[in-house]
């Protein structure tokens, strides 16, 4: 079973700084400790590089910045392979973001599609799909089937530009994990009472930020939903 782990935190660390490399070392330690349980995972550039796209009356509404104005923003994600939620929590608690921010665990519908392990290239983007908290639907319902058909059409149109993705179950199945000192705090649902909640994820490859935004604008979203486009950190380039 795959769980999408969304890593939230108040971002203070710029890529390339000593703090950044210290954090990277912490994540490498997490990688080594968990091994094959990590199916995929990427770090994102700071949220001031984010573009949020909402369905408008005619043209989509494009704004800079993340989808919600909260102190804690998405800084990256993992896809974890775990037999049960307890196993997923045991992995999530080891993620450095659990100690500095919060990790949300979302059961993935079906399984993660896309490349296994970290990818390469500075032309990669994560698109987080969010929906109104009351809009998320469970697999098997008619609304879900409609959504799947729309995403199927997007997938056919986008072709090779899609390099990964997952749909997640409704927010009532999500779990938030924080570590504070010796204590592991596990709570039901997404960590913040925001109007919008995660609904799925795409990884895209695009020649330019503009091309990525144009592609992201075609991703089907619910009426109260949005997509947040974020460039993915290319570790290979940073280390070079």
């Amino acid at each position: 079973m795959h769980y999408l782990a969304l890593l939230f935190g108040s971002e203070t660390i710029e890529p390339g700084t000593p703090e950044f490399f210290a954090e990277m070392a912490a994540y490498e330690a997490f990688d080594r400790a968990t091994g094959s349980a990590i199916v995929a995972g990427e770090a994102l550039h700071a949220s001031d590089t984010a573009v949020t796209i909402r369905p408008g009356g005619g043209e989509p509404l494009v704004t800079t910045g993340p989808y919600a104005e909260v102190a804690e923003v998405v800084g990256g994600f993992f896809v974890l392979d775990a037999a049960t939620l307890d196993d997923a929590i045991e992995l999530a608690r080891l993620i450095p973001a659990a100690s500095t921010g919060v990790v949300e665990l979302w059961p993935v519908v079906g399984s993660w599609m896309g490349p296994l392990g970290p990818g390469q290239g500075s032309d990669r983007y994560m698109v987080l799909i969010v929906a109104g908290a009351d809009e998320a639907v469970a697999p098997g319902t008619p609304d879900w089937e409609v959504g799947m058909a729309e995403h199927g059409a997007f997938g056919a149109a986008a072709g090779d530009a899609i390099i990964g993705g997952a749909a997640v179950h409704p927010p009532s199945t999500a779990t938030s994990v924080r570590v504070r000192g010796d204590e592991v705090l596990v709570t039901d649902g997404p960590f913040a009472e925001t109007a919008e909640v995660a609904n799925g994820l795409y990884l895209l490859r695009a020649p330019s930020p503009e091309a990525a935004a144009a592609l992201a604008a075609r991703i089907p979203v619910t009426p109260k939903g949005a997509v947040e486009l974020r460039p993915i950190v290319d570790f290979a380039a940073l280390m070079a």
Partner: protein
Amino acid sequence: MPGSAEDPTGHPAAQERGAEAIERTFRRESGRALATVAGVVGSLDVAEDAVQEAFVEAVRTWSQRGVPDNPGAWITTTARNRALDRLRREARRGPKEEEASRDAGRGPGARGHGDGDGDGDEAVGPVRDDQLRLIFTCCHPALTPAAQVALTLRLVCGLQTPEIARAFLQPEATVAQRLVRAKAKIRTARIPLRVPPDHLLPERVPYVLACIYLVFTEGYAASAGDALVRGELCDEAIRPARLTHQLMPDEPEVEALLALLLLQDGRRAARVDAAGDLVPLEDQDRSRWDRDRIAEGVEHVLAAARRSRGPRGRGPYLAQAAIATAHSTAPTWAATNWAAVVAAYDELSAMSPSPVVAVNRAVALAFRDGPVAGLEALDVVAADPRLARRHMVPATRADLLRRLGRRSEAADAYRHALTLVTTGPERRYLLRRLAEVTTG
């Protein structure tokens, strides 16, 4: 454990009317049957349906052929067969989501996929008990406390949804939806049906204890709702507390919680008067206390204290049980061992500082060292913003002022408390006291 200590039926089952027998059996046996069947098939949903079907079957056959000698075993066997039948039917129809959902709950013997860390996590010890697994699943921290309580009452205690709704003064639809959501989460997010491995027990046991205590306090705070139903809720909380203690006899905090519930419950009959008004501990008719329950509670406190001498030391439930022991064993209010009460509150404050604990400590201090000492301690905690909207501080201050004979100050404090109090019985109590200090 056939014929548990709480089994209320000692007379021949055949004399009972069918429907009553079934209802009683359901309450008593459905949690056990559900736990056993869920353990066999690995799915809470399949097990719950099967247990319901078994009771439908019971209604049909028991009214004709009489109640079997061991109704619990009959229900469990019938439910297990129903569940296995269903799994066979589904297997023929082909594996799909169903199979996936069944794998989730498997504890020992499950296919060990996803154990990539290779530190032997999958090697779970022998199954301690089906019911204990069920309790840990219902009290999983990834569920809200409200959902944990509803699930525990529904699945472990065998209460029906309308009964739970009545007990919590909530619309039936709300409770039903809460249960559906919680069960969907267990299924979809794969909350395992298992007793957590040893290294997780220290962080998971407190959730189980908190949930059981929440069920109990809901029943014990007879401030609203059907008193009868609420009394039953206390019994329902004691049942899983007893069970958890039997299954984890070496956990001192589990035994301390059982002791706490027994000690408090022993005073239940004297806690509310004929008019439904709250009787403060000081004024309770102690001859109406249940001495057997209290004696049993004291035994468990002593055992838990003996077992707490280890490195992990004493926990918060033991401190609370120590307070309950001092009260429940005192022949009169005045003869209460206040030094022991203050010491236990100090212990509790050190473990988990809370303004409510601080107020209660101030009261104990007032009886150990006099009301002035109590008022001074109360002033220290009164500024805590978490108490600002509660009647607790002014009501306590009023009481201490009344004891000092400072009547007009006491009256002011009672009036202040009355602007904040929310429940009927407590309001009536404060009005009565206000009348005392303003007249005669």
